[in-house]
């Protein structure tokens, strides 16, 4: 017979109370686990979706002068820099420390041609990368599937009266318009998009590119460091982070996390109140029993140990069950929030955190009841003496 036998026997033989106590704390822990897991998955999902929403790093050749272009309005001089960087340099991006964060690299090459007596701008792109980067593109017709097919911007199609299936001759080479972009409100509306290799060959820029757009997954990744790492690998290039895009993405995530933390704190408070009230009720209910312990020679610390040991057992059980219930609830609820359920994985840190949290809440909430029990006047508690 040791103190822990008293605590264990009390919980074992008062199953209803044990179940109530565990349930109270377990619900709190489960809610927090569900919330944290949901936040993590949704944050990743939001980050993923936002990262899909365009590039956040632009790689261009280094230029000595300042750009004379603002908001798409050319203020004189050249409208675009015709200097290039080597296409093979882009392979070096895969060797940077944060390479895993780089999701899309979309190289581009420009070329000017004349069609129906008017000058036009052709853009050679890697279609799979470009389409992945620009999810908002809506194409009337088909996506290009061969080297002889191009996509035409909305304004360019109107100006040259092109539609899917039309033939276009660019620098003595015939192309079929596989699709026409719906209006994007950007410079893309004025361009002819063709496969990168075709454009490089057509405009005599084989192995060269004019710029590259990069989408880095930036949820918890240091965009500034990625920029530095790319700059170091490609010294001839000017690497620029689109700070506004990055900042807005991070702001959105941070706001979401702040809200979630507030909700979690509220649930935590309610959970600890449940434990406190239940433990206090349990102590009051066991007044006589505590009086007996005290009368037969248990020290205050012995009585506190019994109460806190019970709280510890309840807390560990609540933490483990709460974690499993929370994870289960998240798994059930997740398909309603996102299609990216494949991201779902068990996080040992959350598991350990849940049990630790339950223990901390359980012990803190039981500290006052345990102290009150230990200070109970034995003769008052027994009343009969």
């Amino acid at each position, binding site marked *: *017979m*040791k*103190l822990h*036998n*008293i605590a264990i*026997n*009390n919980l*074992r*033989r*008062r199953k209803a109370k044990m179940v109530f106590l565990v349930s109270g704390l377990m619900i709190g822990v489960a809610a927090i686990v569900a919330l944290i897991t949901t936040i993590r998955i949704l944050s990743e999902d939001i980050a993923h979706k936002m990262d899909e929403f365009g590039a956040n790093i632009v790689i261009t050749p280094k230029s000595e002068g300042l750009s004379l272009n603002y908001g798409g309005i050319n203020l004189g001089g050249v409208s675009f820099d015709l200097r290039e960087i080597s296409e093979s340099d882009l392979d070096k991006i895969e060797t940077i420390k944060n390479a895993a964060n780089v999701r899309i690299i979309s190289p581009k090459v420009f070329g000017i041609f004349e069609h129906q007596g008017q000058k036009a701008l052709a853009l050679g792109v890697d279609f799979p990368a470009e389409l992945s980067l620009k999810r908002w593109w809506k194409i009337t017709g088909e996506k290009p599937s061969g080297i002889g097919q191009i996509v035409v911007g909305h304004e360019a199609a109107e100006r040259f009266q092109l539609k899917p299936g039309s033939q276009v001759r660019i620098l003595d080479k015939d192309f079929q318009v596989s699709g026409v972009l719906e209006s994007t409100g950007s410079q893309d509306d004025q361009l002819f998009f063709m496969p990168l290799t075709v454009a490089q060959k057509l405009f005599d820029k084989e192995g060269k590119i004019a710029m590259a757009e990069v989408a880095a997954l930036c949820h918890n990744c240091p965009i500034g460091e990625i920029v530095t790492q790319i700059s170091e690998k490609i010294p001839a290039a000017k690497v620029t982070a689109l700070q506004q895009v990055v900042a807005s993405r991070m702001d959105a995530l941070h706001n979401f996390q702040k809200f979630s933390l507030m909700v979690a704190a509220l649930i935590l408070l309610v959970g600890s109140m449940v434990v406190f009230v239940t433990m206090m009720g349990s102590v009051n209910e066991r007044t*006589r*029993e505590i*009086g*007996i*312990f*005290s*009368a*037969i*020679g*248990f*020290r*205050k*610390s*012995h009585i506190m140990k019994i109460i806190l040991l019970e709280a510890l057992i309840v807390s560990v059980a609540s933490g483990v069950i709460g974690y499993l219930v929370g994870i289960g609830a998240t798994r059930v609820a997740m398909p309603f929030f996102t299609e990216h359920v494949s991201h779902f994985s068990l996080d040992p840190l959350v598991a350990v955190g849940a049990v630790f949290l339950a223990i901390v809440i359980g012990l803190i909430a039981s500290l006052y009841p345990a102290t009150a029990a230990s200070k109970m*006047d*034995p*003769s008052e508690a*027994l009343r*009969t*003496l």
Partner: protein
Amino acid sequence: MSYIQAVNVVKEFGTGDSRVTAVRGIDLSIGQAEFISIMGESGAGKSTFLSMLGGLLQPTSGRILIGDVDIYGLKSDKRADFRREFMGFIFQSFQLVPYLNVLENVQLPLAVTHHTEKQKRELAVSALERVGLQDKALRLPNQLSGGEQERVAIARAVVNEPPILFADEPTGNLDSRNSNEVMNLLKRLNSEGQTIIMVTHSRANSSFAHRTVEVSDGQLSATSEAASQFTVSRQAAGAGA
């Protein structure tokens, strides 16, 4: 030679106009291995006095000496240790812990001692044998009769063989047959050397003691030696059984 000494012990409850004096300056000496009975009407202050003698209730003034130790001069934890080592308590209504079985209830005072688990078990079994309940060791208190529960309470009180036993109305919830068994058990323990201080309403129970003190309105009102009565009463109890 005094073993336990109450020196001008006073106990007041409440403050101001609601102040009540439960014990008004009692002086009492109890010898080693003495069996003393404290009698009095309800509210006379006898249970309060017993609590103070047992180190459970701090007197407002006065001293309780056990041997040469002033028990209220000890700090709370030391006093708890002293109770555990030197005192056993038998409460009215048995006061067993409902979720512990008989063996566990008896072992309760040993839960915080340095005995090995084997020693604890042996001491508890031995205590149960002394009260004749060794065959009911694994039962829960609610599976026992009132008399059996009281005997378990006695076994718990003597398991660590304390020199002093305090009993508060030990037969208050028992019928006459069980009362007699319990009183004989207490008498036997006393004859084995334990000092017993018992609060009771019953003259018959009181007759088992060497001495009876009466408390009235918080003061000692009478003392009587009960040796002759004990013999008569025991014969009467035996005839009635």
